[in-house]
């Protein structure tokens, strides 16, 4: 157990104790107890940053968990995990701080729940990024889904919260299940290991396996659902029902990036395949485009941010796909050409976390102070909330990709990457590649538009106090600290991007593209603001121009049908699917669970005959042995005839007492057969039982009416007759074959033993009785137990009557 293990486990441990603190110190906001934890963890992880440059050595510690299944809790810290761990703990600290002021410590506010979920999430997320073992990663992965759902439903009295929680849970967990299957396939392909590093070390061999594609698809399903890629993104806007600190933390900065993390982590494994490239690029760009267009339609500030996040996640995903192309070039060229995409991905990841975090917090403040997030009601807040305004402006500009903020830099790199990729000569990029920068550009235009829109509709225009339920003023300082810090980072990283270069970006890139640095050499990331007037810059200028044009004409756009609906049309598919799932399940269930004993018996009989006969004829089992069939005494034939006749009459008899008399006769005849076949004890028992049974029937008749007449339904009757006939035929055929096989085989029954030993060893001459009380005494003991239970049961049935709600 290393300290790194403790980094993962610490939040869980804290989660156990937190409720006690909550109940013990109700007057102190629970968040304060929590705050030091992410901070300490952040500082601890930060100690691994290679401030001196030159990349970092990966750290690995293993604790055995379920070694027999290949599951070990191995923490692995390299550049990529470190970057994520810093994001999780860093933003985590800020979010906790923010939440202390955001969620008031009111008596009926279950802060303990909130922070326990948050801690669970934090631990789980750290677990995801620090685990080397795929299954452990999966374990934490599902825990993030769980805690996310719980956080979304924190205000579970709201219908929408419950809806959002259910949706996010279903989609992300389903994806998780697929991912688990993918991991399992990977385990099989890689020769029974779940260790990511071991799998990466065999990457070249693995790609040759035919199972690699299904494995990849399944794993990507997990990544895409988690990272809200089209068309699985629909859960994310609904997740905005969570308290805003949660949105800022989970649903923009960290959890939704788990998919990104996984894709980056597995790039060395899958990156060599064309499918990886195309799937990531196509889904990424589609998500980017779809998200940015959808964001424009939103009127809820958090809705805009949600779709914005969707679109930015698509961007990063697409970048990772493009970056994988570098693996094909063995990094021979020192040009940044091949790794720009990956660098952009990592850089934008950081940038997005900062500016989106700031924006979410700002929106939270607006919501908190004004009581609304509806852009139709908001307006003119610039003067009333100057600090919030400033932070928002910085965040929005970064999001729109304007200089000098960090978003601009990564956006530029993104354009570079798309242009680079379009010129590659692999994966048919010569022809198809041209679409990539075009889509990227269009999406950027819309990104600009919604950023612009957020700005104008919230902060500019006229302030109308009648739109608000309370008096609007600037937020308290505590609430502002976190967004200010994030906003400052946006500016800082925008102005001094190379602060991140060798500390965070380079180590991360080494993890994503392991061959990027030749042995013994270093790899330097340098990010510049000014590359001269190049295509990328022109593209940015065009984005601004077109964006302004659209933004100014937004009213016209808004009239188009597509922009009328705020909800994503894909939701209809989801809702319909879920509805139908229930409805169709009900149909299927009601169809076969009819409550009719007759139907159940019919189904079961058909099944028995069907499967039985199939088996029977599959093996050509029919076999009849005619030996020893002669010499049947006439009286026996008559008795058997009488038995069969009485039996066949039974279904046609509709008076219960006649039925019973017939039953009595049949019982007597069966006893007679026992006599004929030399089974005196059986005959006696049969007779006695039969008689007692008859008396019982008679006693019961007193309490019951004449039996129900079957309604005339010839079809049903025919079906019943056919099926029961088939059961009979099945029994007969099998019986005949067993009889024949028995005659052929030389199996000696164990009964010889009883014949030999009954007298000498058991002291009885009646072998049946000796078997009953001695050789198989247990059977007898139990059979009378059955009788005893039945009798007590009958007493209970008759005398014990409850109405049904006395107990549970």
């Amino acid at each position, binding site marked *: 157990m290393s300290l790194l293990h403790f980094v993962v486990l610490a939040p869980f441990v804290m989660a156990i104790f937190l409720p006690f603190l909550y109940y013990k110190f109700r007057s102190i906001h629970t968040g304060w107890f929590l705050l030091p934890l992410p901070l300490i963890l952040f500082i601890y992880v930060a100690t691994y940053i290679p401030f001196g440059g030159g990349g970092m050595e990966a750290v690995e510690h293993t604790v055995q968990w379920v070694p027999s299944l290949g599951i070990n809790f191995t923490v692995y810290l390299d550049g990529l995990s470190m970057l994520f761990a810093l994001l999780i703990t860093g933003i985590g600290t800020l979010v906790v701080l923010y939440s202390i002021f955001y969620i008031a410590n009111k008596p009926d506010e279950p802060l303990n729940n909130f922070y326990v979920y948050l801690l669970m999430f934090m631990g789980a997320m750290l677990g995801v990024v620090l685990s080397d073992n795929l299954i452990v990663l999966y374990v934490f992965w599902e825990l993030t889904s769980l805690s996310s759902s719980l956080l979304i439903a924190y205000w579970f009295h709201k219908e929408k919260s419950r809806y959002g929680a259910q949706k996010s849970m279903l989609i992300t967990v389903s994806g998780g299940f697929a991912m688990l299957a993918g991991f399992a396939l990977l385990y099989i392909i890689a020769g029974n290991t779940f260790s990511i590093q071991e799998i990466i070390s065999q990457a070249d061999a693995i790609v040759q396996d035919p199972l690699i594609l299904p494995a990849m698809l399944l794993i990507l399903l997990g990544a895409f659902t988690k990272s809200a890629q089209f068309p699985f993104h629909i859960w994310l806007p609904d997740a905005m029902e969570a308290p805003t600190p949660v949105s800022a933390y989970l649903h923009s900065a960290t959890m939704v990036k788990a998919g990104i993390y996984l894709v980056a982590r597995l790039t060395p494994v899958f990156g060599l395949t064309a499918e990886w490239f195309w799937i990531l690029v196509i889904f990424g760009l589609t998500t980017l485009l779809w998200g940015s267009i959808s964001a424009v339609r939103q009127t809820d500030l958090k809705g805009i941010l949600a779709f914005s996040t969707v679109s930015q996640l698509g961007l990063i995903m697409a970048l990772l796909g493009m970056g994988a192309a570098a693996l094909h070039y063995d990094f021979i060229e020192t040009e940044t050409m091949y790794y720009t995409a990956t660098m952009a991905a990592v850089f934008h990841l950081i940038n997005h976390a900062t500016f989106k975090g700031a924006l979410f917090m700002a929106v939270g403040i607006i919501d908190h102070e004004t009581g609304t997030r509806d852009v139709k009601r908001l307006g003119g807040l610039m003067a009333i909330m100057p600090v919030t305004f400033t932070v928002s402006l910085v965040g929005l500009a970064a999001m729109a990709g304007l200089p000098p903020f960090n978003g601009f830099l990564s956006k530029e790199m993104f354009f570079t990457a798309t242009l680079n990729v379009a010129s590659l000569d692999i994966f048919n990029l010569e022809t198809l590649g041209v679409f990539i920068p075009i889509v990227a550009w269009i999406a950027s235009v819309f990104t600009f538009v919604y950023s612009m829109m957020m700005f104008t509709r919230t902060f500019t225009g006229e302030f109308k106090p009648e739109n608000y339920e309370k008096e609007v003023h600037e937020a308290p300082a505590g609430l502002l600290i976190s967004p200010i810090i994030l906003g400052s980072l946006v500016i800082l990283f925008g102005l001094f991007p190379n602060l991140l270069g060798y500390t965070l970006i380079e180590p991360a890139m080494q993890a994503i593209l392991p061959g990027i640095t030749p042995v013994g050499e270093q790899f330097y990331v340098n990010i510049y603001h000014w590359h001269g007037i190049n295509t990328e810059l022109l593209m940015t200028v065009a984005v601004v121009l077109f964006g302004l044009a659209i933004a100014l004409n937004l009213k016209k756009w808004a009239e188009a049908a597509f922009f009328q609906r705020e909800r994503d049309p894909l939701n209809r598919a989801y809702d319909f699917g879920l509805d139908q799932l229930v409805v169709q399940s009900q149909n299927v269930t009601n169809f076969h669970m009819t409550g009719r004993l007759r139907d159940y018996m019919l189904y079961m009989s058909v099944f028995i005959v069907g499967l039985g006969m199939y088996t029977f004829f599959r093996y050509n089992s029919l076999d009849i042995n005619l030996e020893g069939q002669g010499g049947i*005494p*006439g*009286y026996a034939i*008559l*008795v058997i*005839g*009488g038995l069969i*006749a*009485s039996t066949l*009459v039974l279904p046609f*008899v509709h*008076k219960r*007492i*006649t039925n019973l*008399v*017939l039953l*009595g*006769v049949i019982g*007597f*005849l069966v*006893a*007679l057969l026992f*006599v*004929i076949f*030399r089974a*005196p004890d059986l*005959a*006696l028992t049969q*007779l*006695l039982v*039969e*008689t007692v049974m*008859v*008396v019982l029937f*008679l*006693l019961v*008749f*007193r309490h019951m009416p004449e039996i129900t007449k079957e309604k005339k339904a010839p079809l049903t009757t025919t079906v019943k007759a056919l099926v029961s006939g088939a059961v009979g035929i099945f029994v007969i055929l099998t019986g005949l074959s067993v009889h024949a096989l028995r005659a052929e085989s030389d199996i000696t029954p164990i009964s010889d033993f009883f014949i030999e030993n009954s007298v000498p060893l058991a002291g009885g001459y009646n072998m049946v009785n000796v078997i009953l009380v001695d050789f198989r005494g247990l059977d007898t003991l139990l059979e009378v137990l059955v009788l005893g239970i039945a009798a007590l049961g009958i007493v209970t049935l008759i005398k014990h009557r409850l109405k049904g709600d006395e107990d549970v």
Partner: protein
Amino acid sequence: MIQITAQITLVLLAVSILLCVIRLVKGPCMADRVVALDTIGLNLIGFIGLIMMVQQTILYAEALLIIAILAFISTVSFAKFLEGGVVVDRNGSSR
């Protein structure tokens, strides 16, 4: 000789049983059926006696006696049931 007559008698009894089964199915009233059942019981007693001779064993003597007893019990039960639907009276007042 006894074996042969026993066999013949067995067939006679078996036919008797079948005849009773016919009456049992035909009815028309329940009493008829109970009569038939009772008679079948009687015939069974004879039947088993004969089987004892055919199989040369006295092992079925118990069965024979038991059928006699049981035929009686069931006849009485059926008759009581027919009379009033009550096989076991709760107390003496009902008779």
